[in-house]
């Protein structure tokens, strides 16, 4: 049912995880706002609801009409993609 969501955020590029932090300890709000704009809609919505608004995955699932697992995976994908963008 949620395949559309999963495919929405898959860009086919899974970069290896760096052995050291690549994101500045203090990310600027402006940089983050710009990076958020580059996220796919689904991942962006889940990220904003969870990390900005503070909703629980259970609540996000209800709001967006997806499963709790999909909410979690979308937030994870968003965070990973933001990490990649902010490390540039």
């Amino acid at each position, binding site marked *: 049912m949620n395949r*559309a969501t999963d495919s929405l955020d898959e860009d086919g590029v899974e970069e290896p*995880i760096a*052995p050291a932090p690549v994101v*500045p300890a203090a990310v600027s709000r402006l940089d*983050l706002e710009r990076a958020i*704009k580059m996220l796919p809609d689904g991942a962006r919505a889940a990220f904003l609801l969870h990390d900005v608004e503070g*909703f629980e995955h259970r609540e996000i699932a209800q709001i967006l009409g997806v499963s709790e697992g999909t909410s*979690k995976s979308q937030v994870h994908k968003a965070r990973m993609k933001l*990490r990649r963008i902010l490390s540039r």
Partner: protein
Amino acid sequence: MNCELYEELLDDYVDGVRATDRPRDARCAAFEQHLGGCSRCQALVADLSSVRLTASTLDEHVPPPRLWARIASSIDDQQRQPWWQRQLGGTFSAWVPAAVAASIALLLLAGGWNVWEQSRGETPQQGGVAQPEGESVPAEQHYEQAIAGLQQLADAQNAALDPETRAVLTKNLAVIDRAIDESRAALAQEPASTLAQESLLDALETKVALLQDTVALATDTGGGPDPADLARELNQ
């Protein structure tokens, strides 16, 4: 390393969940043990924590209803109901606490701008939006004209809506009007500010979208004109 086994737990850890919070879940303790000796996961936790910390400080904005429609349809493409029916299950007020009253942060800023750029036939720029000073004026006029026309339609059809829905719409319009005023004030102080320009255009687009949805909602409840006529009017 079995880092991939701990993906979900890693996000929980970033969210502040510890093994002591879940004494019955052995995976949490296993992950924390793994984390102690894995520099990759330590780096990931540090990076994602930085992102999360900054995200929690971002300002809140009012969500554009049509963005919700796009998000919902992209998340589950098989659901083809109008957005308000999907969100409400039949009652408008049920949607309000979840979406509007919650004032979803940055959906407006993050989504509305890209849509506006695409409507101009341009490709969104990577790493931000470098908008030349003053370029927002034609777009602002475009939105103002659309708002004026839609406002007339919405006023004419308001009677078709139930009082509770009308009250919610009025309240949301007031929030958007306040956002427009604040954006204009910010732009007046810093005319070259890209963020202020974005904020103003996003707020205007939100108002257009809300008015469009108001008209559509009234039409759907039987009080409005034929949708084809409405579409022609909106495109003028």
